[in-house]
């Protein structure tokens, strides 16, 4: 970094020298020309800037080895990020820095590629379709294996074992509608959708494993084009009868709380979204103790448990750190 800064400044100095002055100055008096004096002063300023940047560099270089844990910007991710962070803190001597609320899958991916973060929780289905841009598949193991090998080959990222739950898309309707119409599966619901309005999030509308494929596979037609809104507002809209069907997440904490019903994906359209930790190969090589931490989390969270954790934070408004700590204790992982 310093070398690059130096080169940058040298380049500008050379640029100034190229607007030539000294060397063949025929000035008989030998007095320094105005341009030479200002060159000297400019040199002084650049020295100052170099010194400042060196100081800045050194203040940041004196910190101890640390692991940067990242996550995206919704509740489940914050919980998983906190989980990983606390486990690292509990089981290793490494310092952990949290960079939560990264603005989406792409940003998280770019961050880990650039080394701004070392580890973050991703979903196999998302990795397959949104990052690797491959077509959706339905076998969880196949998806996991494919993502694992591609991530290793292309990105030098390692996939940890799945955490245990499948946060797939959940097509939700109100509980009373489901009971009244005796609905269990999406195929059954297809008969009623022409009378309904649907609500979906931005990513769902755009993703290859989202809206387009869903309506194609199930032959869904709606009364009007779907309303598009923020994920957080979807459940509320469903409850308030502004929409009749939404795509939420399987592990949404509010599903039981608000008496919402998840329609079964009987045609197995949605790919699996197993939660896995993604870690940089380099980080793992430098700190092999992290492997044990990641393995310790394998299969520890079921669908229902994730839903409960989400509800604790979203529904009961409890502090994430505390919720995670209690969970670790209850699982005997602390």
């Amino acid at each position, binding site marked *: 970094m310093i070398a690059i*800064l130096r080169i940058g400044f040298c380049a500008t100095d050379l640029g100034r020298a190229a607007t030539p*002055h000294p060397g063949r100055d025929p000035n008989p008096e030998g007095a320094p020309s105005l341009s030479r004096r200002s060159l000297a002063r400019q040199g002084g300023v650049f020295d100052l800037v170099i010194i400042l940047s060196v100081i800045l560099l050194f203040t940041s270089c004196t910190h101890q080895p640390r692991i940067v844990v990242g996550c995206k910007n919704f509740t489940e991710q914050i919980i998983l990020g906190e989980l990983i962070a606390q486990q690292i803190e509990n089981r290793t001597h490494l310092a952990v820095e949290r960079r939560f609320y990264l603005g989406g899958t792409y940003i998280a991916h770019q961050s880990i590629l650039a080394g701004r973060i070392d580890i973050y929780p991703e979903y196999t289905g998302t990795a397959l379709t949104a990052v690797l841009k491959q077509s959706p598949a339905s076998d969880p193991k196949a998806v996991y294996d494919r993502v694992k090998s591609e991530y290793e080959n292309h990105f030098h990222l390692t996939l940890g074992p799945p955490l245990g739950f499948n946060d797939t898309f959940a097509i939700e309707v109100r509980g009373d509608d489901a009971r009244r119409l005796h609905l269990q599966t999406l195929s059954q619901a297809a008969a009623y959708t022409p009378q309904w309005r649907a609500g979906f999030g931005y990513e769902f509308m755009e993703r290859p494993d989202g809206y387009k494929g869903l309506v194609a596979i199930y032959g869904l037609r709606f009364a009007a084009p779907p309303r598009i809104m923020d994920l957080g507002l979807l459940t509320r809209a469903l409850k308030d009868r502004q929409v009749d069907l939404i795509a939420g997440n399987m592990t949404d904490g509010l599903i039981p709380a608000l008496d919402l019903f998840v329609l079964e994906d009987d045609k197995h359209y949605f790919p699996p979204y197993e939660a896995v930790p993604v870690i940089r190969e380099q980080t793992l090589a430098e700190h092999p103790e992290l492997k044990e931490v990641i393995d310790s989390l394998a299969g520890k969270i079921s669908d229902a448990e994730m839903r409960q954790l989400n509800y604790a934070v979203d529904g009961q408004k409890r502090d994430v750190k505390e919720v995670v700590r209690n969970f670790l204790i209850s699982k005997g992982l602390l």
Partner: protein
Amino acid sequence: MNFWNFIAQNRNQIDDLTLEHLWVVGVATLLAVAVGIPLGILITRKPRLQKPVIATANIIQTIPSLALFGFLLPAPWIGDRAGRLAILALMLYALLPLIRNTFTGIKGVDRGVIEAARGMGLTDRQLLFQVELPLAASVILAGVRVALVTSIGLATIAAAIGAGGLGELIFRGLAMVNNAVILAGAIPAALMALAADTLLGWLENRLAPQRAT
């Protein structure tokens, strides 16, 4: 969380992001200088190119920055790493002030000086490096200043596409609805822009040619 607490607890992160920001801006500006100044010189020599070159740079500038970032995403190699993309986009934005200021700076050199220099037998290269560029230096540097200061601001938006830098703190602070985090990104960026502006403004003054009273 209090602003100063956040700064104190996250000094490392802020340092990292500041350096990242400086890096992206620095490389982009250097590239823009390397491309823009020669282009500006070229159009003083070839008047027919003046309109198309400046018009192109103008059009690039009118594209909203976020749109340009997004537009470049699918490009091979560039789009793979957000840092490269940000550097390219920032460089494109910085071209117009550099090209335009180089052009006006050189054109603004006193006609009598140019005529005397050519009549004396200076080659075009000698004219450029010994007369035109030194006399245009102040104006060209003003272009660099504008390019640098706007780049520092634009680089905060680059965080939206994952390029990092201080903008990352701003976006995260927005997602967390936490002012301390927002300010932790916004204030260093503003200070950086101010410092660049002051430093280069001072340099411009030093380089401005003396006028007869």
